[in-house]
């Protein structure tokens, strides 16, 4: 067993200023470059990335960290309940970069990337449908996978699995 004090020492050293790219904090997670812009920065960062050659937005998705708030984030990034994660690819440099944006539960709104990458239309609709995160400037922010009159956002962690009531005669009440 190592002495607990010894393990703490590296953390107490003054941390170097976090590395940034286009004004957003950069971290390397398992060999993948990840950017952490704020909501205000995100459109400018993605535009700068596009100018750098990251021409294609491959994927946009969301994560609900309701039951896992103490995840590891770089210095200076305040964890919020939601995260919107976008993956970009540069064909010339053969590189990928991931952008993670913190979205608070009280105001789940994010500027849309539609103007920069028209291909995010369906992906952002899916995030809206599944997490209830709204994208400002999206041309048609409606449900895509669930029926139009559906209530709730299924991939949120407080949305239980198996909510459709099933009735069995003479069965004891639900758990």
């Amino acid at each position, binding site marked *: 067993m190592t002495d607990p004090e010894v393990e703490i020492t590296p953390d107490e050293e003054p941390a170097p200023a976090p590395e940034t790219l286009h004004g957003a904090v950069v971290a390397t*997670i*398992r060999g*993948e470059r990840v950017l952490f812009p704020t909501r205000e920065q995100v459109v400018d960062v993605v535009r700068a990335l596009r100018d750098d050659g990251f*021409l*294609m*937005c*491959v*994927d946009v*998705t969301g*994560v*609900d960290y309701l*039951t*896992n708030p103490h*995840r*590891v984030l770089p210095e200076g990034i305040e964890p919020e309940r939601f995260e919107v*994660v976008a*993956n970009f690819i540069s*064909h010339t440099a*053969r590189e*990928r970069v*991931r952008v993670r944006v913190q979205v608070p539960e009280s105001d789940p709104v994010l500027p849309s990337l539609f*103007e920069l*990458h*028209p*291909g*995010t*239309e*369906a*992906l952002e609709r*899916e995030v809206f449908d*599944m997490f209830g995160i709204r994208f400002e400037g999206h*041309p*048609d922010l*409606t*449900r*895509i*996978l*669930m*029926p*139009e009159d559906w209530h709730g956002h*299924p*991939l949120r962690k407080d949305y239980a*699995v198996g909510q459709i009531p099933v009735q069995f005669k003479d069965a004891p009440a639900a758990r």
Partner: protein
Amino acid sequence: MTDPVTQAPPGAGVAITSEGAQEMEPRAGGVEALREMGSVLRMSEAEAALPAVEESETTIMNMGPQHPSTHGVLRLMLELDGETVLRTKPVIGYLHTGMEKTGENLTYLQGGTNVTRMDYASPIFNELVFCLATEKLLGIELPPRATWIRMLMAELNRLTSHFLFLATNGMDLGSTSMMIYGWREREEGLRLLESITGLRMNHNFIRVGGTAADLPDGWQERLTAYLDSIPQRLDEYEDLMNNQPIWRDRLQGVGVMGADEAIALGATGPILRATGYAWDLRRDMPYLAYDDVDFDVIVGSYGDSYDRYAIRLNEVRESSKILRQCIEHMPEGDYRVQDKKVTPPPRARIDESMEALIHHFKIFTEGFKVPEGEAYAAIESPRGELGCYIVSDGSATPYRMHIRGPSFVNLQTLPHMMHGGLIADGVAIISSVDPIMGEVDR
């Protein structure tokens, strides 16, 4: 007004396709036009259900979800002017079963059975990308034989998937014989997959840490016999289809898309390669052992439906080439990693070792724990970039499991390719995009 290319009055030289300049020009406007042109119909179902305005010149028509040429349950809301398609809205979700939510409640061992049902025409790829993402989180290195078995399975699955495309593409365009031929070759491939995994589809053969089993005895002979039969069959297809005037007329110049448009819309796979843009993850961002095999990336030049058909046809040849190299270079050794925490012990060990019994029991009841973090893995599926994003909170089930389905993103190209064409062209275009609705809706 005369046509600038042929110097003929409009409409006069339409039928004579062998005269004049044959090069297709990119659509005017490029990427900017995607936002301006209005190919995408943005109208809710409630609006569409309202009675039509009397003086409206256009008609809203639904195609699908039970239309035979929509490959399952794709529904297209079409705005028509006569028979010309103006705007299109793909309506999806009829097959949505919440597989990403289900994935959050299954362990990493059970996850394979879930993801394999997404793109049911290429199940091996779904399992593969899920396992690659998990292995990235675990940080384990696979034995070479496991990697090569995976590559062999993936390419075999690519063959069956592309044969399915060739069959359905022929069927959609009225070539029943092509349907029968494509299905015949696909079934032979599936029989081979069945002899290795035990199932025709939904194999759950690729597991975290390797594969479920080693290759059976005599696989080389069976695979070689299958590969030997393919070139002759492909030549037959080419004789049957490529020079047939009906086939060419139905596909050439139909659903044209430029490279910049495809990139802006996030389209990958044969749709992107048909535009002349050589991008294949197997070559450009190699995974497994694709670095060690020799194959070509097939690209088109016009970005039309014919190119998308021809690319898939020729990718069958390239995949056969890779499969032959797999037979030749298949290394000896373990087919799964020897890590007791990830790989269940062999059956024989359970009878003699208490520890093996405990490990076996723990892996199959509570699963193995995966370190906290996130990982994105991507592979080249027959339809394009198939990605898997996993967030782990350190437990035995993924905290979030997201699949980036290529069909889901590729569907966005439909309104742009169908704009200005006829409904019958729409059928050819849907077919050439080759969407698998299980993956679109997940």
